[in-house]
């Protein structure tokens, strides 16, 4: 019993460390940029905005830069990174596949195509009902792609690991070509569509943050609600069924929720790959595979990863490189590493 208590203390400690790192990184990130603002001043500006601090008068320009430009982007990076990471962890759990994430399964491309259609079709006079906003189309694109990938990869009622990723890559390639075609047709809007293909956090504002916050809270709550069922899924479908897990319902609900989180992330940031793959693997390595802790820690880790990557592209690289390029450059080799391990049977 003592050992179990010690394990719990260790988790709280890791949680506190992770949260502190994320907060510090956010503060550090808002103070960095073309105009350097000392961390102390950034902290005061944010605390004033939160209503925790009243006395000091801060310069207007700095306040505007932090509150209107950098803070939405920093918060957005954390929310998007966290949402993608939780989506990845959940997809890996329900599909029993360590290589699954919104990017490798083609969800991100599906959402991007949906979003691009939402923008391009009206340009050709095709009227889209008001209800089908860009975000809703992104969701339909993500969910539709997921269904297509699952359908292509399934033989009988079994899902093969490699088939699933192959199907994801193939569908993703087709969707990217379709986005390319849209880009070709819709000359003037090219910059917007390229943004979706490459992934960038430069277009975030407070209204988008509100939607992101809602989808993230909904997604992570539902996922954590089913976290014990996700653990049991690791023993395979048969065993999970005989332990009372309703696999069909579990998969349906969690696939919907991950599609929703991915769609929100992609509508506002474009395709950002591999965060959903890397974050859960880091957490499993450090803390273990129990989904009750894996999911919240994946959120923290994904947030820290994407925020770091975005801060690097925004502040340190000479020209602002879309962050999706950086995550793909760093995440691609990581994918190869996990893939090698899974071929060798270390991760089955």
């Amino acid at each position: 019993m003592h050992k179990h208590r010690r394990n719990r203390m260790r988790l709280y400690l890791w949680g506190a460390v992770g949260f502190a790192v994320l907060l510090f990184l956010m503060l550090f990130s808002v103070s960095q940029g073309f105009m350097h603002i000392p961390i102390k001043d950034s902290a005061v500006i944010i605390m004033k905005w939160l209503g925790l601090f009243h006395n000091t008068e801060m310069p207007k320009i700095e306040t505007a830069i932090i509150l209107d430009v950098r803070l939405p982007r920093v918060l957005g990076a954390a929310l998007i990174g966290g949402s993608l990471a939780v989506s990845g962890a959940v997809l890996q759990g329900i599909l029993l596949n360590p290589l699954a994430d919104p990017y490798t399964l083609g969800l991100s491309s599906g959402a991007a195509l949906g979003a691009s259609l939402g923008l391009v079709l009206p340009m050709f006079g095709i009227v889209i009902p008001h209800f089908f906003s860009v975000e809703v189309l992104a969701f339909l694109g993500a969910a539709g792609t997921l269904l297509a990938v699952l359908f292509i990869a399934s033989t009988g009622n079994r899902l093969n690991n490699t088939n699933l990723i192959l199907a994801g890559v193939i569908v993703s390639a087709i969707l990217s070509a379709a986005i390319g075609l849209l880009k070709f047709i819709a000359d003037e809007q090219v910059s917007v569509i390229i943004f979706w293909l490459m992934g960038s956090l430069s277009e975030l504002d407070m209204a988008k943050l509100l939607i992101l916050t809602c989808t993230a809270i909904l997604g992570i709550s539902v996922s954590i609600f089913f976290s014990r069922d996700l653990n049991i899924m690791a023993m395979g479908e048969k065993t999970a069924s005989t332990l009372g897990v309703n696999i069909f319902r579990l998969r349906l609900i969690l696939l919907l929720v991950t599609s929703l989180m991915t769609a929100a992330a992609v509508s506002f940031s474009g395709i950002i790959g591999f965060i959903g793959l890397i974050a859960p693997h880091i957490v499993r390595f450090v803390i273990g595979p129990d989904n009750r802790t894996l999911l919240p820690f994946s959120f923290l880790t994904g947030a820290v990863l994407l925020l770091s990557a975005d801060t690097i592209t925004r502040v340190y690289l000479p020209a602002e490189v879309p962050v999706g390029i950086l995550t793909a450059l760093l995440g691609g080799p990581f994918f190869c590493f996990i893939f090698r391990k899974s071929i060798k049977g270390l991760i089955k």
Partner: protein
Amino acid sequence: MSRGPLLYSLNNIDFSYNKKKVLNNICLQIPTGKFIGILGPNGSGKSTLLDILAGLHAPTSGKCELFGKNIKEYQALELAKLSAMMPQDFSVRFDFKVLEVIAMGRHPHLPRFAPLQSSDYELIEETMKLLDISDLAERNIRALSGGEQQRVALARVLVQTPKVLLLDEFSSNLDIYHTLTILKLLKGKINKNDLSIISAVHDINQAAVFCDELIFIKNGEIIAEGQTEEILSTEIIYEVYGVNAEIRYDSKNNKPYIIFNSELNI
């Protein structure tokens, strides 16, 4: 077979998979409190029959009742408290610890967010001791040998504390020492814990010694069923497996054992 209160009642069960008939007109009355062995050649439908009993597949036609109630009508968690299954290919994705895997067997008994209680831990520790795996508690499940994994899988179904245990060739990777100790342990549990066991068995000699009753199945049909001593015969073995065998009896306990003739009549 109609001794003791009824555990399962199967009426005219057919099951087809991909348009191929796997089970054909299965009728069985299975009593409680027995160790029942299902025997038959590869691909005869043993595992499918177990899946039907576990409620994993709905029969294409016919009815499967557990304790007098159609198995379809049980809630998933309710059924998980009554029956537990150890599938043939037990493997775990991701690096869970042995203790975590076994603890998952408590899932049907715990409210959604409830942590394991001290009574759960006691049950888990006791079961691990019985199966000789206490030392493995903190080990990574995927780093274990096949035999160790099989004992972990067995511990996992035992802590589920079901009324009926469905086993699919649980001893295929076990050495003879562990096979015998576990068979003895399971026999003891039948009497002590009001348990029934239905197991697909590969080894006829094992079945002859430990099973109270046998069900012989071939091409999805039941060839014979009944008390072990009554139905075990060279004719049945020849009919089911197509091999010549000789049945002898142990002079000490009068249990049958089978010797196979290496010259096959092909």
